[in-house]
């Protein structure tokens, strides 16, 4: 899964002291102002306004102007003229040095991908599309189990923004990829936007088949050719296909979306799909902090998961769970997870019918917020399941190339691994970053901690953080032209450090000692603590502080160096310090008996101060 860095087509020709960036989301347009303060780039202000892609406005720049106008009010400076954002900064102080934007408005980038073999070229095409920031509506392949006419009907029914077609290694057989092209031709697919336009199809398959693909598709579609994304079976080259997806996103999708022609003129840098920009931000974070990263953005309609693993952080994967979200798609969480899985996180009795109606009412009125503690607890229970399901989905796709021959030497002959191994190794995970309303705006930061721990089950030592105001998209696109400014703002203003979690892995019994820790603070103070199986608690370590932590796991417990092996780490502080999570990993399980389960949950919430004391007291009393 090699990922080529987004090529910046824009070269800076001036010193950058002020940056304005917008992210036009499907409901809200967010603007941030970054300025150089002394030697550092810092976030100065943010503004937001409803997105205006839809009727009655049908002009994305109206929402962008409103969001920027909030910045004008907050700073007392002028950034807008009739033509757009004033660049560069003028002698009178008006304007900024550069304006940038990302967008997911109007449904974002919606693609269909096709390949010959489901777990090979089709899977590579899917990774290329997801990495570029697309929602993949369907994946068609010769062996996907559907009959030709069913595939044709499906292609006809969907109206994607573009299709990515792959198949075959260079110089290999052309019959199968031609067959897929013929299905596409027979379906005569139409693009989602721009009635009367031809649908763009990117061909990234066997180069020897190009002539045939041209014969089959050039008349009915807007056909583009790029390098084969699987030139040989053992290699995946996603860069050229992703680059062409970004080009077409600008040329076709953005150009058709209301007002984007104007917005595109405001900025010298191509507008990036929001998830593509977030992906860049995650990759930058991994390199910057020299650790593997998992990031999640849980929205109202979709949940995106990003992961960056590998010795050189070359294993980047992004998945989007298009129907897992906290408002528009909340009923789908109920459908996929089931009521029982949601209820297991709720520490009180609630009628199932009442819960179902509440969830449906959130779906039809997505902008409402919980007003009571019970409602908040329910919403956070649902979010755990949405996050868990999205992560399961991610793990199933973030895998190595499948169905290939692996070169082995004599030494590895007895240590053979299967192809298609997961790239996700929770024990090697360095940092888990959460984003999206339910995580970024939880009333207590510790609620984000516990939601992420429960959903992702990180193992060993993991730093936890949330994106404070979801500015990762703007920082992602900024990194293509000014990596330093992007990195500084990311570290100082974007991330809110929650703390460092230590979770020993291994089976245990209630009350068994899982680890002893010795924390040496910067001022020399030493605290020793013993953690027992089935418990969670936090030791203080404030944001910006670090401490040396000696961890002595119990004989059957592993924190990353083998069962019973001790380690010394430098823990980074956060709002919730050092979290000793001994509730169990592989397996983590909640008691089946309702009363015992509720008692357990209330105990954890009490120990971590997840909810106010009066709520905890009420929950204890009720049970």
């Amino acid at each position, binding site marked *: 899964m090699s990922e080529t860095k987004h090529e910046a087509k824009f070269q800076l020709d001036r010193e950058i002291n002020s940056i304005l960036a917008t992210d036009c989301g*499907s409901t*809200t347009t967010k603007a941030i102002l970054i300025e150089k303060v002394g030697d550092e780039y810092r976030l100065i202000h943010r503004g*937001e*306004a*409803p*997105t205006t892609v*839809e*009727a009655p406005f049908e002009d994305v720049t109206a929402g962008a102007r409103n969001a920027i106008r909030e910045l004008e009010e907050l700073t007392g400076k002028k950034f807008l003229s009739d033509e757009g954002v004033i660049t560069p900064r003028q002698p009178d102080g008006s304007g900024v040095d550069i304006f940038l934007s990302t967008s997911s*408005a*109007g*449904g974002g980038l919606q693609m269909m991908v096709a390949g010959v073999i489901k777990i090979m070229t089709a899977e590579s095409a899917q990774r290329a599309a997801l990495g570029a920031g697309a929602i993949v509506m369907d994946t068609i392949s010769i062996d996907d189990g559907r009959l*030709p*006419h069913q595939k*044709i*009907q499906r292609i006809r029914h969907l109206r994607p923004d573009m299709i990515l077609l792959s198949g075959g290694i260079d110089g290999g057989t*052309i*019959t199968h990829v*031609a*067959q897929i092209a*013929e*299905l596409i*031709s*027979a379906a*005569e697919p*139409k693009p989602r936007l721009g*009635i*009367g336009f031809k649908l763009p199809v990117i061909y990234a398959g066997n180069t020897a088949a190009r002539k*045939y693909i041209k014969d*089959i598709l050039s008349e009915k579609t807007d056909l583009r050719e790029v390098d084969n994304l699987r030139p040989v079976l053992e290699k995946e080259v996603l860069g050229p296909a992703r680059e062409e997806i970004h080009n077409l996103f600008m040329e076709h999708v953005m150009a058709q979306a209301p007002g984007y022609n104007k917005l595109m003129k405001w900025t010298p840098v191509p507008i990036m799909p929001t998830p593509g920009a977030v992906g860049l931000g995650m990759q930058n974070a991994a390199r910057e902090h020299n650790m593997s990263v998992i990031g999640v953005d849980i929205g*109202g*309609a979709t949940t995106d998961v990003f992961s960056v693993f590998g010795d050189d952080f070359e294993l980047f994967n992004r998945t989007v769970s298009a*129907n897992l979200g906290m408002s*528009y*798609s909340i*009923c*789908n969480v*109920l*459908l996929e997870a089931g009521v029982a899985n949601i209820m297991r996180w709720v520490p009180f009795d609630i009628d199932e*019918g*009442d819960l*179902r*109606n*509440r969830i*449906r*009412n959130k*779906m*039809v*009125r*997505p*902008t*409402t*917020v*919980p*007003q*009571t*503690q019970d*409602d908040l607890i329910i919403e956070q229970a649902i979010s755990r399941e949405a996050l868990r399901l999205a992560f399961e989905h991610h793990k199933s796709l973030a895998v190595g190339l499948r169905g290939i021959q692996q070169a082995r030497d004599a030494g590895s002959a007895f240590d053979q691994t299967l192809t298609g191994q997961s790239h996700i190794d929770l024990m090697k995970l360095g940092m888990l970053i959460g984003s999206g309303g339910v995580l970024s*705006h939880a*009333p207590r930061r510790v609620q984000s901690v516990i939601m992420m721990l429960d959903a992702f089950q990180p193992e060993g030592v993991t730093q936890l953080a949330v994106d404070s105001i979801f500015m990762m998209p703007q920082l992602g696109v900024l990194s293509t032209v000014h990596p330093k400014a992007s990195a500084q703002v990311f570290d100082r203003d974007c991330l809110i450090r929650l703390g460092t979690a230590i979770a020993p892995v291994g089976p245990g019994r209630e009350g068994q000692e899982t680890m002893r820790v010795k924390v040496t603070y910067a001022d020399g103070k030493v605290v020793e603590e013993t953690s027992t199986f089935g418990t969670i608690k936090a030791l203080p370590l404030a944001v910006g502080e670090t401490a040396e932590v000696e961890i002595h796991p119990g004989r059957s417990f592993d924190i990353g160096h083998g069962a019973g092996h001790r380690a010394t780490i430098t823990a980074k502080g956060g709002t919730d310090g050092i979290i000793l999570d001994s509730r169990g990993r592989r397996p983590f399980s909640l008691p089946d008996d309702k009363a015992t389960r509720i008692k357990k949950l209330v105990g954890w919430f009490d120990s971590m101060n997840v909810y*106010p004391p009066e709520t905890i007291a009420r929950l204890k009393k009720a049970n």
Partner: protein
Amino acid sequence: MAHAYTPGLKVTEQTVIHKTRRLPLLGEVLVKEGDLVTPEMVVATTNIPGNPQTINVANQLGIEAEDVEGVMVKKQGDQIKKGDRIAYYKAFFGLMKKEVLSPIDGYVEMVSPVTGQVALREPPIPVQIEAYVKGRVSSVIPKEGVVIETKGAFIQGIFGVGGEVQGVIKCLAKSQDYVLDAADIKPEHKGCIVVGGSLVTGAALKKCAEYGVKGAVAGGIVDTDLISYLGYDIGVAITGHEDVPTTVIITEGFGKITMAAKTYNLLRDLDGWVASINGATQIRAGVMRPEIIVPDYVPKHKAVDAAAYAEGMVPGTPIRIIREPYFGLVAEVVELPPELQMIDTESHVRILKAKLASGEIVTIPRANVEIIEG
């Protein structure tokens, strides 16, 4: 944000409504600006390419893909009938004969010497767009469709299932909190749009389907009743294409919820009028709510100044509370403190104080109310 509250659903006795009627592909518009139209009148038409079928002739005849062109009896572009021989192959001096017959009426679209596949296509499928509402063509979008303007009563629901239908409104609810049950639905309601109060039951919907009732409107529906009515669960709030005999529109939410007085009173006044309704709901980008349109309705009451709601909420604005712990209650805004305030969840949000019908004054996040618009 300047306006943090949810804009309300429209419930108005008289307004000017514009409906855009657009073809899925470019085609022909059959009416011109200024024409008067009725709901069932076709205003635009086009042909969608017919369904394709692919046959692997090379496989069926046991020959190489490159030889397929030579054995085709029907060539690219030729018209075909179901059962026609489209390919014929003989070998061994005629001792071995094989043929491929057409499974459809249509024409041969493509013969592939690369894969040996032959694509056949059925005749084009005509698609017609109807006016949906009685009104006047206010503008024509060349080759795409029209905008129809009508004046009348307009009610938006919160959620619906089922597509566009027309019928006479029959208000069966005796009060705002009336439960519309199976016993209320009679054979004479065939073709009508029936109105309940706080709830339409699953049994009532079953009867509606049995008697051919076109639409059912009520304050609420129980989640599990909706699932049994549809035969499946809805995960994402995009509806309108369900294959259901009766279009359902709920005005308040899920569960038993008293219909807002304004909605109920208007629907009661509309008893006997012909309405065009659509259950289509889309709560993502491009919000679409289910609707009830009654063209030509003459208001019985003095019109409310629409500008009264243009500036958002002010003390005295009627609102509906749309989340627990006061979900479904109607109230009146008393105070709108500008600063953020901490609520029970410990979140800091913009709030308002509202007076409930009982006289109690309560604090509610502004995001949890909607204006009852006129």
